[in-house]
């Protein structure tokens, strides 16, 4: 057991402690809050690096390096509930990613939130989030995982609703909380069931964990009522939790609305880390999901039901969200749908290619999506809280650093060949999907998604950075209500002026993230699949011949063609004829008004939910209210009246019957006592006299009685 594993708990506890200190500080001290938050993240990052290097040192030994440590938390019955954490390649990679991205975004926030009066509260929540997220990452125990998972959900709620005086933000926060709660219910049920089946919630415990061979084979052989293996059912329930958190298809509605929060929050929580927690969960319990069920003695090896579900949901989400992103006008909303789409890719990767494929995209995506969000934050800041891409334009010249980094992020996201991380990770997913034996469907969906991704990112960049600046014309009040001001409290929002570049505290993190967005791709190329090997505990070998193997090269070429097609189409539609004013309709809107309306309204999913689930819920609530008011309320009122009547009766009986009898008795007793007390005069000789007389009388009586 290495010392770093023993002390791995420090990584989440440091930010948590920072958040606690900020929270209990009476006077909001901006400098202290920012210093504490950033300082704790620096230490967490250094520790994470240490953990990573330890894993790296042991890499190449037999099997996957894995160490667990923990403590007994509480006892129930004869068993102890343990909280365990683990250090393995998956954890190490995530630790470094989360702490680095968090650190950069913390630094960025200092600049972005500089004018906000609730600066300290913001950093308190951010630190709490970072601590909980790191807790999720190191957890080797579903209980610890779930606790941190829920704290993460809570901070997401708090930070989306950070500007709670804005009704849309408050509503978005509620929506996010409730929607993810639906998924979390599935996760909780899965957890309980898993405990019932295996008697442990530890992932790995030297052969006794619930993700290890013994438990898995037991679960796979055990069937539920519907003829499904228990492992499958539990896997599906846990996946439901991941669906909620990662914004997959039926529960994706909260993620775009979550953009109501401050932009650093969107970058950190709703793009880079928290939403990836769902993907991480699937990666973490991958052995359970990949466990082939044994039904009637036959082992199904090709793929499992759970992974099929993961794959299909991921693929559908990827295309679905990407197509919506095409028709959005809010800069953050485009990125939000892009995030949903990319999370779909990760799920697809996990389903078809295993942990390494999905996780690689998670890591690269975290960097370039954080970069894009921070870039959009910088744009919004520079354009005086304007979020509508139609009102931007021409920012290339005034914001050169932001433009350069944003372009790198955009090319990485679009998957521009060879030089950007997104290309390699997306290509790996497509490659795995191509080889999927069950169905070719996900592969084609993935390709379509890649085309759309390149297209909408080109559209966004063309609208924001090219052409001429179209802002500063929103004086007409009729139009003003449609704009959401990102930072209503900021002093700058009231000033209209030319756009400007953001300060160095904001552009610095952008540059660092941009470097990572490029470099990270090279740890997972087909020629040198180091990342893959690292997670699986194998050695990576540099082998260029793999690049030219028929399948790989063909796929790389075709995905490059797809990307170029998307970029070209986007440029042809939006870059060639640049939009002159903010009011003119979109090119697609002119060409295909019907389809554009569908996309712009997000396929009316929100409306469908409003008409089905929410209306049903409201109806049920109304019925309950009616029952409460009239039926149960009436019953309660009746009982009240009956009780009051009875009470009156009792009072009457008490006063006029019981009390009267009692009073008379007491009076008699008192008078009798008064008379007798006269006898009790304290002269002992008197008593003796009475005794003597009584004795004589007794003797006389006895004598007389004997005789007669």
């Amino acid at each position, binding site marked *: 057991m290495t010392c770093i594993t023993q002390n791995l708990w420090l990584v989440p506890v440091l930010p948590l402690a920072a958040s606690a200190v900020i929270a209990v500080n009476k006077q909001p001290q901006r400098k202290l809050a920012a210093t504490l938050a950033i300082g704790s993240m620096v230490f967490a990052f250094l520790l994470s690096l240490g953990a990573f290097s330890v894993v790296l040192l042991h890499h190449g030994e037999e099997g996957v390096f894995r160490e667990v440590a923990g403590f007994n938390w509480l006892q129930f019955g004869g068993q102890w509930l343990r909280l365990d954490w683990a250090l393995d390649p998956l954890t190490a990679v995530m630790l470094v990613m989360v702490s680095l991205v968090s650190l950069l975004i913390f630094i960025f926030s200092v600049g972005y939130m500089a004018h906000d009066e609730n600066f300290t509260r913001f950093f308190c929540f951010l630190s709490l989030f970072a601590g909980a997220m790191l807790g999720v990452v190191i957890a080797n125990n579903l209980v610890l995982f779930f606790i941190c998972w829920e704290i993460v959900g809570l901070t997401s709620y708090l930070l989306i609703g950070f500007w709670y005086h804005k009704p849309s933000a408050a509503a978005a926060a509620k929506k996010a909380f409730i929607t993810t709660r639906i998924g979390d219910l599935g996760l909780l049920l899965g957890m309980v069931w898993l405990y019932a089946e295996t008697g442990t919630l530890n992932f790995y415990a030297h052969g006794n964990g619930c993700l290890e061979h013994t438990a898995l084979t037991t679960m796979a052989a055990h069937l539920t009522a519907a003829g499904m293996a228990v492992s499958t059912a539990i896997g599906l329930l846990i996946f439901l939790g991941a669906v909620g958190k990662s914004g997959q298809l039926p529960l994706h509605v909260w993620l775009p609305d979550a953009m109501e929060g401050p932009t650093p929050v969107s970058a950190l929580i709703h793009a880079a880390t928290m939403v990836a927690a769902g993907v991480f969960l699937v990666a973490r319990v991958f052995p359970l999901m990949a466990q082939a069920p044994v039904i009637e003695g036959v082992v199904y090896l090709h793929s499992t039901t759970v992974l099929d579900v993961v794959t299909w949901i991921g693929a559908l989400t990827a295309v679905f969200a990407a197509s919506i992103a095409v028709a959005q006008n809010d800069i953050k909303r485009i990125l939000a749908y892009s995030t949903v789409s990319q999370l779909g890719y990760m799920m697809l990767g996990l389903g078809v290619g295993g942990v390494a494929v999905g996780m690689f995209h998670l890591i690269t995506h975290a960097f370039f999506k954080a970069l894009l969000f921070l870039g959009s934050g910088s744009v919004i800041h520079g354009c005086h809280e304007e979020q509508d891409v139609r009102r931007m334009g021409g920012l290339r010249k005034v914001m050169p650093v932001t433009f350069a980094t944003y372009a790198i992020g955009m090319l990485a996201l679009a998957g521009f060949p060879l030089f950007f991380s997104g290309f390699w990770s997306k290509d790996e997913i497509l490659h795995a999907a191509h080889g999927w034996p069950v169905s070719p469907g996900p592969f084609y969906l993935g390709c379509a998604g890649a085309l759309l991704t390149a297209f909408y990112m080109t559209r966004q960049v063309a609208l924001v950075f090219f052409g001429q600046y179209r802002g500063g014309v929103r004086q007409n009040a009729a139009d003003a209500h449609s704009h959401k001001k990102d930072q209503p409290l900021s002093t700058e929002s009231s000033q209209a002026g030319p756009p400007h570049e953001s300060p160095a505290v904001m552009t610095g993190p952008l540059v660092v993230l941009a470097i990572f967005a490029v470099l990270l791709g090279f740890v997972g190329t087909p020629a040198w699949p180091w990342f893959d090997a690292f997670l699986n505990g194998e050695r990576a070998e540099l082998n260029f011949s793999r690049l030219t193997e028929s399948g790989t090269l063909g796929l790389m070429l075709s995905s490059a063609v797809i990307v170029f097609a998307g970029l070209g189409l986007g440029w042809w539609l939006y870059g060639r004829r640049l939009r002159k004013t903010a009011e003119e309709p979109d090119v697609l809107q002119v060409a295909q008004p019907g389809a554009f309306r569908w996309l712009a309204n997000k396929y009316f999913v929100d409306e469908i939910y409003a008409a089905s689930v929410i209306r049903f819920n409201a109806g049920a609530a109304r019925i309950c209210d009616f029952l409460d008011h009239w039926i149960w309320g009436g019953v309660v009122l009746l009982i009240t009246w009956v009780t009051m009547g009875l009470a009156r009766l009792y009072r009457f009986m008490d006063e006029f019957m019981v009390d009267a009898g009692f009073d008379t008795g007491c009076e008699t007793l008192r008078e009798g006592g008064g008379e007798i*007390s006269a006898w009790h*005069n*304290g*002269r002992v*000789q008197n008593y*003796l006299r009475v005794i*003597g007389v009584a004795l004589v009388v007794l003797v006389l009586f006895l004598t007389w009685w004997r005789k007669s």
Partner: protein
Amino acid sequence: MTPLQGCLLVSALLFAIGLAGAVTRRNAILALVGIELMLNAANLNFIAFWRFGPHPEALTGLMVVIFSIAIAAAEAAVGLALVIAIYRHRKTINLDEIKDLRG
């Protein structure tokens, strides 16, 4: 008149005298003397019933009386101590004036 009857008669007389003394005297010490007399009347009864009873060889009555005398000695000591204590407290041993036990 059998010896038993004689003894009982004497002891009844002794008891009556003791009772009269204990009831009538105002002096606490004299009341105590009366009580002692009654006690000894009871002792005399014990002796008489033993001596003229069915098993005079068993020494039971004698034993009880010796016990009783020992207890009487202790009781006299306690009684006199009480009287002295009361006297110290109230400067009198007139029983009519000591009536704190009044209900």
